[in-house]
């Protein structure tokens, strides 16, 4: 599949053809969005600051690659034409504050989860999202309520970004009846029909076909049921990690999504590690974005630590899907600051790698951007942080004071149709037994 098919989908830019040399020298020009980050430990020859996959691919040196579509690079190209210090910011003030608040919410929530876990209030498997907030915020804040999100076990922040209240998520993690799934799902199984959050799946790769099915429904509603939607098709986002990209279901869905032109965006949160398995050790070709063009869809690589770049790419991919042009594969290079889960001692990752990514913290970077472009003052940002702190404290109190699920809840909701639950010894349907919801059925 020619790489140019990927290029033509996004805006064709006249200087795109000379990017291979321009990108190298782009580090000499002042960066329009974020300050340059120091060179990645993986890429010794190119300072890997721009989001172009040519220069910031963490895995190769100067190897020549075909040109492919990276809209964020187009953005930086546009902005390089302006004088550096008065560069027009890529977002409005309101948008930037919304993004900041969402990322702070995600970070504070996850930090509180860690505290609660070590105090014994939370249990089982808890997988935290610290460091990856830019991906969740960058993508999900562009969605409307009717769009769907499907995630993995690392789903707390996806739920929060999609609009599930923090108190509902916290109560769910504590296993209380007021949780978003009444305590029946847990950390790895966040569902919210109201917010179109379709889970929370423990098996990697399991959410991808489900997301493809949700996208299928969107298209089916439009074409067969003839439901009209002035905004275009409802889009589904599937979030998953680098380890999932070796799984068979991933490829099956790339094929079918492109075959049927489904309105879905496959978002790879490549944090380079699958528990203790490094992405480079487990994958024959570690550049995941390449797997998109192999199936006929555009594959895009973006710096996942930079929320504005992620947002630009997300905008383009989501708009494509809405217009009915089909799926996109977006690889976000990101990093998780904590271990795989709270039970992971995280011994295999090198301290200097962690230190490098800590300097690229997306929240610090956005804060710097906002202050440099005078979108808000320091005190306004502090107010937001305080507000979020209070919200999280309130969520913990709410969860603490919520009741545990009643005994009768054990047998409820196995089926949507309670009659299917079975026939009791008296020949009547069990659900008609007056004591059914009090849990006197044999447990």
């Amino acid at each position: 599949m020619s790489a140019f098919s990927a290029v033509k989908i996004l805006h064709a830019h006249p200087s795109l053809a000379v990017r291979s040399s321009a990108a190298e020298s782009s580090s000499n020009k002042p960066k329009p969005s974020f300050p340059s980050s120091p060179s990645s430990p993986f890429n010794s020859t190119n300072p890997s600051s721009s989001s172009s996959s040519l220069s910031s691919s963490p895995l190769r040196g100067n190897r020549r690659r075909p040109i492919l579509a990276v809209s964020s690079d187009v953005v930086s190209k546009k902005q390089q034409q302006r004088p550096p210090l008065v560069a027009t910011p890529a977002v409005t003030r309101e948008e930037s504050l919304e993004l900041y608040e969402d990322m702070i919410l995600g970070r504070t929530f996850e930090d509180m989860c860690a505290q609660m876990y070590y105090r014994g209030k939370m249990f089982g498997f808890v997988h935290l999202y610290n460091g990856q907030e830019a991906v969740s915020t960058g993508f999900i804040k562009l969605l409307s309520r009717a769009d769907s999100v499907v995630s993995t076990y690392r789903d707390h922040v996806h739920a929060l970004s999609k609009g599930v209240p923090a108190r509902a998520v916290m109560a769910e993690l504590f296993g209380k009846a007021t949780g978003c799934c009444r305590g029946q799902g847990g950390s790895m199984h966040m569902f919210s029909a109201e917010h179109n959050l379709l889970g929370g799946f423990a098996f990697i790769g399991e959410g991808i076909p489900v997301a493809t099915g949700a996208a299928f429904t969107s298209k089916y509603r439009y074409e067969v049921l003839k439901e009209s939607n002035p905004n275009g098709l409802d889009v589904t986002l599937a979030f998953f990690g680098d380890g999932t990209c070796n799984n068979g279901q991933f490829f099956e869905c790339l094929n079918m999504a492109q075959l049927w032109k489904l309105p879905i965006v496959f978002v790879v949160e490549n944090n380079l590690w699958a528990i203790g398995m490094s992405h480079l050790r487990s994958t024959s070709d570690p550049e995941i974005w390449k797997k998109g063009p192999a199936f006929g869809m555009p594959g895009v690589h973006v710096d996942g630590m930079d929320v504005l770049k992620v947002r630009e790419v997300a905008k383009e991919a989501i708009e494509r899907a809405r217009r009915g042009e089909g799926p996109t594969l977006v690889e976000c290079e990101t990093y998780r600051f904590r271990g795989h889960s709270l039970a992971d001692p995280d011994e295999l990752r090198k301290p200097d790698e962690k230190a490098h990514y800590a300097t690229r913290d997306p929240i610090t970077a956005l804060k710097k951007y906002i202050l440099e472009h005078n979108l808000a003052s320091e005190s306004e940002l502090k107010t937001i942080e305080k507000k979020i702190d209070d919200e999280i404290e309130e969520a913990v109190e709410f969860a603490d004071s919520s009741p545990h699920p009643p005994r009768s809840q054990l047998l409820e909701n196995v089926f949507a149709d309670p009659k299917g639950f079975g026939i009791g010894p008296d020949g009547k349907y069990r659900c008609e037994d007056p004591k059914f919801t009090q849990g006197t059925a044999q447990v």
Partner: protein
Amino acid sequence: MLGVARRKIACESIPAAILGQALQRIRPLGSILPRNYSNGAKEMMVREALNSALDEEMSADPKVFLMGEEVGEYQGAYKITKGLLEKYGPDRVLDTPITEAGFTGIGVGAAYHGLRPIVEFMTFNFSMQAIDHIINSAAKTNYMSAGQISVPIVFRGPNGAAAGVGAQHSQCYAAWYAHVPGLKVLSPYSAEDARGLLKAAIRDPDPVVFLENELLYGESFPVSAEVLDSSFCLPIGKAKIEREGKHVTITAFSKMVGYALKAAEILSKEGISAEVINLRSIRPLDRATINASVRKTNRLVTVEEGFPQHGVGAEICMSVVEESFEYLDAPVERISGADVPMPYAANLERLAVPQVEDIVRAAKRACYRSVPMAATA
């Protein structure tokens, strides 16, 4: 006309590119010629029954759609979905690539959003590639989401042994799927069962595993006018007593019901009146009917085609022991397939699957024995 149609179907399926198509050649002779009853009751093949049920449900509700391998242009690997592509178009009858895990997951995701997919597996053996989705993302979701997201999906296809298809194409999955809370598992026998249960399954808001049988597809059964009505539905979770009896209860599902009925005929000539129960629904199991019958006859023989250990018969036996122990006059007899992967050679295959004689022998054992291992004259 029906006979011509059947012969045409047989000819179309001869190019044996698809697994299992070779089985079309093995047809019970009786099904080629329509049996006309003097009372004029209409006869329907199980295949037609399933096809008509799919057709009617698809036309009644535009949210119902079909997906599977060869369901469209090939008219269905076993011709169950014949004519549906022409009628409803490629948007509602989807030919999928050979990606069970992928397309089953897609069906589940579509069901999350309120569509009503019918996912066809060419045989349920292939469902093992997709079993993660059937169990983890379909069966458990209503529970995990505390009722927010229900999954109104039907997984259907042929189950169990066919003829000479070898070990990887012959397993019976009734016990596997019936083990899981959150699934409903149905297994029809006659055309009436097929129609009623499939319609009920499609209308049901929960995931249903619908286990058909390939060798039954070509068999005809008499159907009443009520069955042909477009709103005909059978209740899920209720068994049917196919034949009333006094001395021994025989439970069976799918093809084994036919065998059990033949065994009952043979037994009746020897003075043993057998009551044959067609389970219809494996999960939820109709324990009430089974126990009521055992309390009447005091003896039980369970018949199934699958492997014996942890099978459907084991569950039925336990249910009877729990609820009707004092009524049992003899140990429960369990007939099942042999505890080996299905062999290929025709004579070995015959030994690995229950036959009518096995059921007759077991029923006799249950009738003549009131203490274990004591032989009476």
